[in-house]
């Protein structure tokens, strides 16, 4: 086993898209471990706390009238005139990678074990050693067209601090109402419509003392993790799909093992969009977005070795931890294949929990029949009395419902 390190730098990150054509930043063998840094795409919501003094973050987010380190942000057009900016923010997550896995071919399964995850401290001397995150209630959130109070609609950003002393918790520091922000290229962003725009703190009013007396248990996890899809060259990071991506399940954390069907040679694994905590549904559009570093172990399972394992017949992401297996249902199972050339836009109109539930039900039934050798009738009875279905997220265009079965149910595995 070799241990590698993949720091987040302007060269090792890609922003807002997956692509099978991206140049691998690291090549590993099955069984290798890699320490990977990730930086949250919401760091500019509070530049002083999350970017200042952090050389890597400063370089990645650098954007002046003359210079923009990472131009493409999203899978949209790279040539103007832009509505929002290069890549058009069609995909927002800052991902580190891709990592190429030697010998991985379509039809194989890549297992990614999360050995550890820990936060990236602020490098600003003023906040030295402290950890900060941001939670925007954004225009793509479930609440956006359903506000009670004025002004309607609105976007509100809350900055949080993570306290790692056990048990780790997160508390709100302050919040502000999003005001139109002008980026260095002169484009005005009336809403949060393009990632990495630095919020000018002179234009906002900070509200202190919010959520006082509230401490949210930390659930450090990676919101976006997955391999490159085969269907298109540039794929937005927002809708999750059969190759993983923006799954936004807080159970994808230390101790979890994720299984992804490999779609392109080398698998091309990327990770980012780290969260300090999130509830099932990720209601406001985002979690508590934070920069985390993770230690991952990669295990490649060749197609021929899959029968007889939990990966037999797997064509979607699967989670395993000490307690459960989870499958993930989506509004559209494989939107890249099903929705035609305009899939990036069509998926925005196809969000539905009802369809996601249907998909999760089918995937779990298949899992119980193929992997555990149950008859269809046994699988259905077992699901009704022992499987739990939950709402993963209602904000990532391709909405998610997960179905989980406890491993303890199977006394003789």
């Amino acid at each position: 086993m070799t241990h590698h390190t993949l720091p987040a730098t302007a060269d090792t990150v890609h922003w807002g898209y997956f692509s099978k054509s991206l140049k691998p930043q690291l090549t590993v063998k099955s069984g290798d471990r890699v320490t990977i840094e990730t930086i949250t795409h919401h760091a500019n919501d509070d530049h002083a706390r999350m970017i200042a003094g952090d050389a890597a973050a400063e370089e990645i987010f650098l954007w002046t009238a003359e210079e923009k380190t990472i131009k493409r942000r999203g899978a949209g057009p790279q040539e103007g005139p832009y509505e929002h900016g290069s890549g058009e923010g069609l995909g927002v997550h800052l991902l580190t990678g891709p990592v190429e896995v030697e010998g991985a071919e379509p039809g194989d399964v890549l297992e990614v074990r999360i050995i550890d995850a820990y936060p990236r401290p602020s490098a600003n001397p003023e906040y030295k050693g402290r950890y900060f995150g941001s939670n925007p209630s954004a225009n793509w959130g479930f609440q956006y067209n359903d506000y009670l109070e004025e002004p309607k609609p609105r976007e509100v950003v809350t900055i949080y601090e993570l306290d790692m002393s056990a048990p780790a918790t997160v508390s709100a520091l302050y919040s502000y109402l999003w005001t139109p922000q002008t980026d260095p290229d002169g484009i005005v962003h009336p809403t949060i419509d393009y990632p990495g725009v630095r919020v000018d703190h002179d234009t906002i009013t900070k509200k202190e003392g919010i959520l006082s007396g509230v401490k949210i248990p930390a659930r450090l996890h990676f919101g976006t993790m997955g391999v490159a899809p085969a269907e298109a060259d540039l794929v937005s990071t927002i809708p999750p799909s059969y190759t993983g991506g923006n799954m936004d399940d807080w159970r994808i954390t230390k101790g979890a093992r994720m299984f992804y069907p490999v779609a392109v040679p080398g698998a091309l694994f990327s990770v980012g969009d780290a969260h300090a905590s999130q509830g099932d549904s990720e209601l406001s559009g985002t979690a508590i977005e934070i920069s985390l570093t993770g230690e991952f172990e990669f295990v490649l399972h060749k197609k021929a070795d899959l029968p007889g394992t939990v990966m037999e017949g797997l064509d979607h992401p699967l989670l395993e931890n000490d307690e459960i297996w989870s499958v993930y249902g989506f509004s559209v199972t494989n939107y890249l294949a099903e929705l035609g050339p305009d899939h990036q836009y069509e998926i925005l109109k196809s969000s539905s929990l009802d369809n996601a539930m249907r998909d999760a039900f089918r995937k779990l039934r298949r899992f119980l029949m193929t992997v555990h050798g149950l008859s269809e009738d046994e699988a259905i009875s077992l699901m009704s009395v022992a499987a739990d279905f939950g709402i993963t997220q209602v904000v990532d265009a391709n909405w998610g419902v997960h179905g989980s079965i406890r491993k303890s149910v199977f006394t003789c595995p």
Partner: protein
Amino acid sequence: MNIRQFVSESYPLDTRGNAWRDILATLGLRSDSPEQDFDHFAAAVIRGQADGVLLGSLTATAQSLSPLARRGRMPLVMMPLDEAVEVAAEAGRFVIEPGEAVILPADKTWDAFLRQNTNFAVFSLSETVLHGQRFGLSPLASPFHVAATGLGKVFLQSLRAAASELDGLSDLEWQSVEQVIADLYLTVIVSLSSAAADAGVNASQAALFSRLTMAIERRVAEPDLSAGRIARQEGISERYLQKLFEQNGESFTHYLRERRLQHARMALVAPDELRIPISEVAYSCGFTDAANFNRLFKERFGLPPGAFRTNHLKSLMEMANAEQRGWPVKALTDRKVKKRSAVGGVQVGDTELAGTPDTDGTHHVLPANSKTVHWGYFSRSLRPVLEISSGDTIEVETLTQHSSDDPELFIKGDTAAEDVFFWNAEKKNVDRRGAGPIDASVYGRGAGEGFGVHVCTGPIYVNGAEPGDVLEVRIDDMVPRPSGNPDYKGRHFGSSVAAWWGYQYGELLQEPKPRENVFIYEIFPDGDGGGFARAHYAYRWTPQEDPFGVAHKTYDYPGVPVDPATIEKLSPVLSGIQIPLRPHFGVIAVAPREDGPVDSVPPAYFGGNIDNWRLGKGASVYLPVSVPGALLSIGDPHASQGDGEVAGTAIECSMTGRLTVILHKKGGRFSDLTYPLIETPEEWVLTGFSHPNYLAEFGVKGQGEVYAKSSLDLAMKDAFRKTRRFLMGTYGLGEDEAIMLMSAGVDFGVTQVVDGNWGVHAIIPKSIFLTEVEDQDLIVRA
């Protein structure tokens, strides 16, 4: 999609009125009612854009509506869907019946009165869609009544269909629909302006005519009703009355006869009135001579009344195997609900108690037997079987309705189960099972039709409980009930059916399709609320004939004893698998405020079939009280269930619970609670439903509709709104704080997708809040 959904219960009490006014203003309407009381309910789905077509489907309790004067809007259309609406304008008052509509000018004065909880559609069109052409439209001088004839009928039916599918259409489909309706509307308006100009029929004449027809409707049962009498009542000459009818194309005599016949036709097939002799139907519609009635009826409808009724029943029987849970919507549209309709069994008024209730102690024992259970329905008219006071404890026995899946294991030797399930060719101890008609005139499945399936123990009358209070039911303990059969002494069993109402039924992979399966589980409790279950054996459902001779091809009626000779037991099944127990009660309910029996399957504001496994030992549920005494019922015990309950049932297993019941008076801790709220030692669990108050939304007559219109998307929306309200109201958070907290620290899960009214719950861990919430007083920050 440009859809706005609104349910008043999502809002804190003091902001509900404003939120409702906002919604009405979208449509150019204003409510003239004073501040709503707590019973007030309103819901709306509105689709479209302010500068184009807007169509809304609304439900609201009694109030009057008037126009909000605005420029640039065409007259709006209001169409009552279930109850009549009365419109008053300068030209007079008239009544708009369900299925008709009224065109209301936005710039004139009028009032529309909702006399009770009413469903109605509102259609509004911006002048901008006319692109400056006015088609020679003349402004409408006063409200115009659109009757269901000719072009008007086409327009009304399109409007009605669109209103019922507002949230079911894709954007593209909606565009076509709104175009069609807008075109029809303009055609109606144009023909209206030109007809009025040509024929000299003015609006006041139309209003008068409408009033005359209303008078006839009210007095249709009077055998000696005449043109003279009606004219006198309305203060006009008989001649003028005759002229008005002639203008409308028929004579008064002919019109009256037609109305009498139509009334008779409806009465003949009304589910509640199937046993009324035909001669009585004739008299009730103003016919004095049965022979004459028979002849006229046959001339008009092609069949004599007796044959007509038989034919109708036959066609219902043919539908009997159509898979439909609950009241079929179609049968209900014709159904007349009477005040205090008979529920079967013992009936008393709201507050009257039977015999001498047990009031002399703080601990009560409530055994289950055929006198203490009600099966498949809730009702405010049920006689209480026990009276208690706040703070009392009860040991309550509950029996699973699935005991009949294996009578040998579940019933034999258990006196209580033998009593409740007793059914032979002559006698059935608990006849009514479900909220359907007692004579099974819809499908013929059996009394109550199985519209509701749960055996519930109760109701329990709680002293001093009044509408507006909140009843807390705490589960101190629950234990499974051992088999009464000496052959299985000391063992415990449960049953789980993958039934036709399950999520899998329409999309099974293996043959034969479709099919239903029963899994019998053995339960191994560990004596401390835990333990596990193992599958004992399974069988495929085969048609079962009940002791009255009715065949049940599917699991369509509860408590039908399964004949072991007709099934093939499959064993071993689910070998090597053991399921951790999650003992809980599926059903905990107080009586709904609506009249008549209410199906026990769809959960709603009064609790009911909540099916959340967190409602077990150590948990409490808070239920808003709707009737004096609360009338608490408990049943549907489960040994274990997963979130989703996908196959349609849990591991159904008879259990005995020890409960503490606490009454919280109005104005206290939960003054604006409008849904079942679960509290466990660690969490708050809020229950969201597709249709949080489906009885008000669809009307008691529309109970069945909730089965057709369930959706997780709606349930998620409801759960979100309830959680926001809870965090704002109970913990004093601002709206933005509540939303952030929900995103970062609240888990939403799928409760069930099989109970008609689908459920999504929100789990708030109490540990999030640093300040412990005291038992009685929640913290409210100023």
